[in-house]
Every structure is written in structure tokens, then in C-alpha cells.
């Protein structure tokens, strides 16, 4: 009976949303879906899978590469080889995927963002995402896959029945590596290069008095405030917050550029951001050529409306 094994990612009691892409890919492959889960109480929609395999290891140790391999050995023992082993393309997901591939001598393809319609080959980006490669598996299955976030969500289908519940117990955690603790990044000094979400203000902000409202906005959004050079030149914000050629280069998940025209010295500092959203009064502003999304409008009005919508 062919099946797909999903290694789930649970952190701090949350079944991470990234797992949905693993599930989506598994559903696209149209095989039975088995999900391997760590011990603990956390909400998870059971209807996404056909078989839920619970383990007795807590999430922090569960997510370690060697331990996952030990669990997979038990899974293979009990359920035979899966056709695919799917993980999220994330810090822990890719780490485990690589170790699994070396441990069991399996083919591995990471950051998969698509499949051909017959579900035989996998697509993966290359060369700064400029080119996609179509990969076929020439070695023996199972193939280990990590899935790009957001790539397969549309393929998810809830099962009609509740899944079968299985338990794997008695695996001793690997002694060569141990979890100590989680560490929040210190916010002593402003380091915009570490932020996941930057709200960046430019000349369009108008004057210094408009800035405190942006502090409030970044507070609500849990984002970090950054800016372009003219704002620093006017001494409205410190140099540490400057993005650009002579400031910092940033690569956040989201870069919200407000009132920034898109002068090339600024673009150099943020063009590799995963998602660039631009707000500018001028529809011809060059920033719109680099942004993924845009709003043509007054940045201060957008700021106020966002605050209104998020507070309410």
C-alpha cells in the first residue's frame, strides 16, 4: 500500500502553518497520507490525514535530525517504505531532510514549488529564482522532499473519515545533540537587518511630526521601522534605520515601502526582500517596478487606515 509520510513541524505548541504545504503536496500525489507528530497538546486538524502517528518525544527533541531518522526507522518497520517523505522547507525541515537523505541513502529535492500535472517530476528554482529546474527521481524511492511555503496549499482536501491513530514509543533521543532553550533576539540595539517585517518610510512622510504614528503602527504590526536616506539626512530617524547603498542591506519577509520613490541607491538595499509592498502617491514612482504589490495613495492616510482596521 503506497503512502506518503509527512514529518510535521510543531513549535512552541503550534502546529506550524507551513505544514499545510506538505499536506497539500501529499494530497496532490493522491496517496494515503501518514503524518508523524511529536508528543504534546496542540491543535491540529486531523481530517487532513489518513493515519496520525503520534510519538512520545517532545517537540524540541523530536525535531532533531537523528531522532527523526530513528522514528522513520520504526515507521518503515511497521508500515513498510513510503514513496515520499515530505517536510517543510524551513530551518528544521530542511535540516532533517538532509540528514534523512544521508542516513537512508535517499534522493532529496528541496524547496519544491511545483509538480508537473502527472505528478512525476518536481520543480525547483535555481539561480536566484531566475530559472526553474524540472527534476526526476532516478534513485530508489522514497524521495525526500521539502516544500516551499505557500506552494501547494490549494491542493488540500479534507478526508471524510477520521484518521487511524497509531503510536510509536520507546525511542531514546540521540545523545549527541540536545536542546537547551529558545532564545528571543535581543532588541538592545536597532538592527533592522534582523527584522522579518520592515515598514520603511521615505521623504513622502512630509515632516517629523508624522513619525510617532508610524511607531504606533509598527507596534501594532510587530514590525520594525526603517527608512530611506533623506529621512536620516534630516535627522528625523537615526542612521541605524537607513536602508540603501550607504545604509543597510535588508532581506526581510515583507518590506512595506511608504513614500519611497525607489531611487536606485535605495533599491540596492532591499531588492532581495521576499515580498515588497509599495505605497506612493505617484503611480509612476520607480518603486512600483520592484514591488510585488502596490497602493497608489497618501502614505499617512494608509497608515491611519491600517491602524484603524487593525485596532478594531
Amino acid at each position, binding site marked *: 500500500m503506497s503512502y506518503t509520510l509527512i514529518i510535521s513541524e510543531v513549535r512552541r505548541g503550534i502546529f506550524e502553518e507551513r505544514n499545510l504545504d506538505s499536506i497539500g503536496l501529499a494530497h496532490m500525489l493522491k496517496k494515503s497520507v501518514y503524518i508523524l507528530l511529536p508528543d504534546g497538546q496542540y491543535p491540529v486538524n486531523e481530517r487532513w490525514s489518513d493515519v496520525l502517528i503520534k510519538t512520545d518525544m517532545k517537540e524540541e527533541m523530536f525535531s532533531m535530525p537523528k531522532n527523526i531518522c530513528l522514528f522513520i526507522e520504526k515507521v518503515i518497520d511497521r508500515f513498510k517504505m513510503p514513496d515520499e517523505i515530505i517536510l517543510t522547507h524551513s530551518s528544521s525541515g530542511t535540516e532533517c531532510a538532509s540528514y534523512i537523505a544521508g542516513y537512508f541513502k535517499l534522493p532529496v529535492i528541496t524547496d519544491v514549488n511545483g509538480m508537473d500535472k502527472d505528478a512525476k517530476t518536481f520543480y525547483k528554482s535555481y539561480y536566484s529564482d531566475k530559472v526553474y529546474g524540472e527534476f526526476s527521481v532516478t534513485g530508489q524511492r522514497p524521495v525526500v522532499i521539502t516544500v516551499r511555503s505557500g506552494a501547494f496549499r490549494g491542493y488540500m482536501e479534507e478526508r471524510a473519515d477520521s484518521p487511524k491513530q497509531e503510536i510509536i514509543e520507546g525511542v531514546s533521543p540521540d545523545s549527541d545533540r540536545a536542546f537547551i532553550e529558545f532564545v528571543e533576539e535581543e532588541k538592545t540595539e536597532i538592527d533592522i537587518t534582523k527584522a522579518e517585517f520592515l515598514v520603511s518610510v521615505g521623504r513622502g512622510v512630509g515632516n517629523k511630526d508624522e513619525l510617532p504614528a508610524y511607531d504606533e503602527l509598527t507596534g501594532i504590526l510587530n514590525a520594525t521601522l526603517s527608512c530611506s536616506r*533623506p529621512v*536620516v*539626512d534630516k535627522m528625523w530617524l537615526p*542612521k541605524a534605520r*537607513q536602508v540603501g*547603498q*550607504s*545604509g543597510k542591506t535588508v532581506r526581510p519577509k515583507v518590506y512595506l515601502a511608504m513614500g519611497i520613490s525607489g531611487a*536606485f541607491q535605495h533599491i540596492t538595499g532591499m531588492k532581495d526582500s521576499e515580498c515588497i509592498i509599495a505605497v506612493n502617491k505617484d503611480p509612476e514612482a520607480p518603486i512600483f517596478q520592484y514591488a510585488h504589490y502596490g497602493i497608489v495613495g497618501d502614505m499617512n492616510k494608509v497608515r491611519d487606515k491600517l491602524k484603524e482596521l487593525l485596532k478594531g
Partner: protein
Amino acid sequence: MQEQAASRVLVCIQCGKCTGGCPESGRTPFNIRMLVRKRQFKYAIEEALPWYCTACNACTLRCPRDVKPSEIIIEIRASMVEDGNIPVTIQKALESTFVQKNPWGKPRSKRGDWAEKLNFKVPHISETEHKRLLFSCCIHAYDPRCMVIPVNVATLLNKAGYEFGILGEEECCCGNEIRRIGELGLFEELMEENIANFKEYGVQEIIALSPHCMNTMKNEYGDMGIKVVHYTEVLWSLIKEGALKTEKPLEGGIIYHDPCFLGKQNKVFEPPRDILKSLNSVDVHEFARSRDISLCCEGGGGRMFFDVEVPYQRNGEIRVTDAQKAGAHTIATACPFCLMNLEDPAKEKGIFVKDISEILMEVL
């Protein structure tokens, strides 16, 4: 080389003429006289200080003892470069220049793309008869704001029937700023590659679009047996000969800003002014600090890639205020760095900043 450096430093009598002419002194912690003093006694120099220098050369020009303080700055920077102890943004500019032959890190293969904006084909230098090379600065090749300048100059030369060619993607950074940053090894590599190309194609004359490129190729590339001029010199002779005619009148209110690398360092003061004066009914204002004592825009010496930690009132702002006081509404200049540095503060006061070639295109 070390011997020369030592003797130059020891010759300094601490008269302070250098600091007197330095665009950074007074408003920043940078004091060139003091730095030379510290070098005399081999005292430690605070890390950030050497990077303030804009390489305007005013100090070297004013020095009565030929100490060449601007070269001493380059020496200090060179040893910091070898130690790997340089500001991160400068490091990135150097690494980009090493890989892509321009400090902005833009693809080398796109260096000649500006020529595609023209409605005529610009030949490769090898295909020309007179072997006049139009050499663009990295910023001309890649910055959207400055890209109009090579396009304009090419159009003007073409209109005047003046043959020229380009290197396209074989062109690489002239190295002027790289040398002033102190990366002498990289400067050597750039210079060698450019000279090899010039020799291979039998270049006879180089028309430099940027005063920075002109400066290093004329004065620091050694004796290439090639004539190096700035484009304003060429355009002025074409206008004088009547090969390039201007028709429309231009409104008054233009003030000319002497770029350091064109003016005080290479003494090219008149051609840009002559071009402007030749345009119908244009009165050209003069700054109080003009020609040899022109106020540096603070773009040179690697300053385009580096911002000092402590903000202060930029010379650009002062220049714009002076322009306003003189009753001008447009600042004309002939250097892309001056253009970029003046335009930001100018925009806020409603003043325009235009390159000579842009003004010419308006009156053709």
C-alpha cells in the same frame, strides 16, 4: 613608496592652509592638518576619520610645501584596506567592483545598455575610423537618473557628425574612486584591463563623460599616448566651429557649479561656461565660491558609498541656498556625482539641477 610618504609628511610645517580649504573641516570632526601631524609622530588615528575625505584635492593644491595631504589620506586608507578594517558599505562597493567591474554591483553585461535608448546605432570603438572612445562612468551606465547623460552626449555628437565609438560591456570602472578608497591592487587591475582594451582597439582619444574618469585616465594611467578630454571640451569646440547649432532660447537664472575633478584639479573651467553663455540670452550666475575654490559636493573619495555616522549640514544644501540667494533657479554642472548630490536638497527648495548635456538638449 614608503620613503616618499615619510619625507612628505615630515616636510609639513603645520600652517593649516589645508584645513582652511577643506570642505569637511569645521562641520565634521575631520581635520586634515591634525591627521598629517599624527602621521608625523605615527600616532593612532581614529578609525572613522580617514573616510570623511572627499578627495577634492583642495589641501594638496593649497599646500606650500607639497606635502600632498590627499595622498596621505590614500595611504592611511590603503593600510586599512589591507587589514580588512574598512566600513561595510565600502567593502561591498569594492567587492562589487571586483566581480562586476562597477561599485553598484550591477551586471557587467548590461554596461552598454544605455546605448539602446538611442535612435541610431553607436558603433563599437573597433568599428570606427577616428578611434574616439566615449567612456561612461559606472553611474552613467547603471543609474536611471544619470543614464540620460550618455544618451544626450551621444545624440549631440551624432548630430554634429562627430564620429565616436564605445566599448560597451568591455568597459570597466576607471578606478578613480577605487584608488582614493585605497584599494590600490584593485585599481591596478582595473587600470590594466582598461589600458589593454584601449591598446587592442587602437584608441586615439578618450571622451570622458565624468570628470572622475577623465582625471584618473589623464593623470594616473601613465603615458598611454592617448588624448583624454571631458565631453564639455569636445562639445564646446563643436559649437564654436558651428558643427553643433542651438536654436531655441533658454531662460535665464542658471548658475554653474564647478566639479572638483573637472575644475580645481584639472583646470577645465571655461568650456562648460562658454557652452552656457553661447546659448541665447542665458545669463550665467557665479557662486561666490567658484572655479578653484568651488565648494565640493562631497560625492568623491568614496563618499557615494559611505555615510558618516554623525549627520551634519551637507555642502549640497549650502550650495542650493547660495544658488537661491544668487537668484538662480537651475544649477548647471558637468559631473554625475555633483548632479546626484545637489539634486536631493535642490528638489526640496524647488531648484533644478541639470547636466550641461541636458541643458543643451533642451535648446537644440
